[in-house]
């Protein structure tokens, strides 16, 4: 799985340091982006560099915070969703002291009960960073939650504000056939599984 590969190439495990970063965004086929179904908000922003720049598929535009640390990006869903992967695009070469250095990912039902599920430290990253939300236990492959919060705790070179260029959130694709315990994989089954 490219997920694992990405993890190996850039870091150790959860508490480890992440450096480098992929130039190309490659995600597994059975994951799909869930950001469109969520409400995105940020703790603060500079005019013209707001939250929409995080979701515009444009790496030239970025979100710039405008206040005290920590800075938050809040992602709220209407119903509980299963999330597996968070991908960020940050670039030390362009942003230098604005590049995040410590990031914490929290999940919960709302602002009142967020709990940290992942913490990473970045070292001069340039490109797409894959942050897997899976635990070691296979039962923890997904995080089933209403809300995700990405907190930027500190920046490189002790910068106050931060730049993040793009964020994407991924979860598993649901079974195209409803009411089925497992997905069909062989051609024989798939051909007969739907009428078009």
């Amino acid at each position, binding site marked *: *799985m490219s997920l694992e590969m990405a993890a190996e190439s850039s870091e150790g495990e959860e508490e480890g340091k992440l450096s480098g970063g992929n130039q190309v965004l490659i995600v*597994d086929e*059975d*994951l799909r982006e869930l950001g469109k179904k969520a409400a995105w908000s940020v703790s603060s922003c500079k005019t013209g560099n707001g939250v929409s720049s995080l979701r515009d598929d444009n790496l030239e535009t970025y979100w710039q915070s405008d206040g005290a640390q920590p800075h938050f990006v809040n992602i709220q869903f209407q119903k509980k969703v299963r999330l*597996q992967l968070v991908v960020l695009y940050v670039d030390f070469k362009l942003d230098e002291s604005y590049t995040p250095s410590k990031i914490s990912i929290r999940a919960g039902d709302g602002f009142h009960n967020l709990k940290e599920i992942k913490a990473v430290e970045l070292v001069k990253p340039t490109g797409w960073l894959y942050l897997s939300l899976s635990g070691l*236990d*296979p*039962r923890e*492959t*997904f995080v089933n939650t209403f809300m995700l919060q990405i907190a930027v705790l500190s920046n490189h070179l002790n910068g106050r504000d931060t730049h993040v260029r793009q964020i994407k959130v991924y979860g*598993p*694709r649901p*079974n*195209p056939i*409803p*009411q*089925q*315990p*497992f*997905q*069909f*994989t*062989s*051609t*024989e*089954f798939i*051909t*007969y*599984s*739907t*009428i*078009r």
Partner: protein
Amino acid sequence: MAQSRYLFAISCFQMNLLNEAEATLCPANEPSAEVPNGSAGHYLLGLIYRYTDRKKNAVHHFKMALSMDPLMWAAYEELCILGSAEEAVAFFGEAAALCIQKQYLNFSTSPKLHSSTEDCNLVDTRHCVSEDASPRQSKLMQGLKDISGNHHGAPVLGGTSGQPINSGLSNISFYNTPAPTMTQLSGVAPPLCRNVQPNGSNMSTQSAENSPRSTVNSTIQARRKFVDEGKLRKISGRLFSDSPRRSSRLSGDASVNANPNTTAVSGNGTNYSSKHLGGSKPSSRAFRSVTVRKGQPWANENIDEGNHNDILDDSLLNITSTTSTSSSTMEAKSYEQEAANIPVGGQVLSSSKVITGASEILTLLRVLGEAFRLACLYRCQDALETYQKLPHKHYNTGWVLSQVGKMYYEFDYLEADRAFGLARQMTPYNLEGMDVYSTVLYHLKEDMKLSYLAQELIQTDRLAPQSWCAMGNCYSLQKDHETALKNFQRAVQLNPRFAYAHTLCGHEYVALEDFENGIKCYQSALRVDERHYNAWYGLGMVYLRQEKFEFSEHHFQMAFQINPQSSVILSYLGTALHALKRSEEALVVMEKAILADKKNPVPMYQKANILMSLEKFDEALEVLEELKEYAPREISVYALMGRIYKRRNMHERAMLHYGIALDLKPSATDAAAIKAAIEKLHVPDEMDDNL
């Protein structure tokens, strides 16, 4: 005037002003008025009722149309689509033959006949179709009528017996134009003719499909030229006692073969563009059945209702036969030899010839009609058998092969692919049924063939909904649902009465998880065609996903009633029943599904699922063992077996199967589920084993 009422009604219909169209054809203040244009009018009225949801009236009018003109295939098609057709024999039987005969014989006794054969043929044939109410045509028609009126006080033909013919003959030589064909019409006003293009090759079956619009344009060009000639004729005609014929009429009726898919049933040799209509059955009469275009009625503006036309037609018929003998400019066709039998005066229409011709056509129509009816009822095997009864030259034509393909689509995609492939070889420019072909290729996951098909179709006709459906299927196969949706929406725009385009839009919305819009699309599809079972199925699936099991079951039931032989529908019906906790019924339905198609593994798998939930573990395992043989790489089979073994506390076997399942590389969700299950293997059974 009746003729203009019909024209007006057609125009309203084209612009989707169904109320006005209906009011014109059936004026509210004249409840007993006859519908203008005879069978064509009834057909149009039937269409209007169909699209305004008054099914009974629609059926009534289609039947009327067929009784007035038994050769109106389009009306029969509509009946089949509405699911109300009786057996083909009823419509295309002896009575029909007699009816046709009567129509022709009536004409032969009228003195008006002979008359100036002349130009009418020449002129008319040239004009051909031109349904598209080109203004010139109507003017021409008017002009001609006036002329004839002036000269003879009788519509059209005028002239008395022998003399006109002579003058006619001289007229012919005066014009000296190669008469493309003799158009013969079925006695009653030919209803909606499709704009037809001369087509040399595949004629033989009749079809009422839409001819690609691009061809229409080219034919219009051709027609315009003829119209000019016609005008010339008209003017010079004034100088003669016999007015030039109403070309319009003939042209209108001609319609015919131009259509790539049709062949005038009666093996007519006549094809306007003077192409010899090859394979068709030679018929003594060589009359063409009027082919009608479904859903796009193009009226023949000439068509007058009533006897005028009939008389004209008939006389034309005679005339053409006579002129054929006399005029060397006429193309010789098979019928011409027979025409030679008819005395120049055209007085004696050999009634036996009419009957033979009529019965030949009707025999063919009976077979085609019966097959089509069975196809609409989704009795696939019967329909296929009926199509097999056709002689080779008729079977190997685009239309028939497409229909065969559609039947195979219901249960055997490979055969369907083959049939459609052949159809494309025969008639590469036919678009009807190509949307189904693209779905077949989608199911077979043949992305190369599918994209090639889509490209070809778009090149053939950018304005046909089928081309965009194929394109959309192409994108959908590559999981680009948004682009696919755009393509399907384009198809809908091009023809909102094309039910399948709506259904495909619905499928794409569902794939994008936009269930509301998906439901709306499926419902639009059903509004167009209530018997479009794919839309019922789509709705059932949406409700199944939303866990509204009662709705889901209802919709699958509706789909099942329309298409009782589809194993997929049955298996989902069973799933819905199982979700409603009616597991016994579910099992019965699953058995039916398994019987319906032995090659479909899904109902067996579902059966195992249901058995497991009913705790009949051994039976479930049996079924799954069978499935293992059939689909050895299907992960869900192993995973389910693992689960069952766990419930039976046979841990090693469970472990084995989970292991195999994992080796086959399941999706992330399933992998997680299976791994979790492995961890829990030695933990005592929890009630809800939802991994």
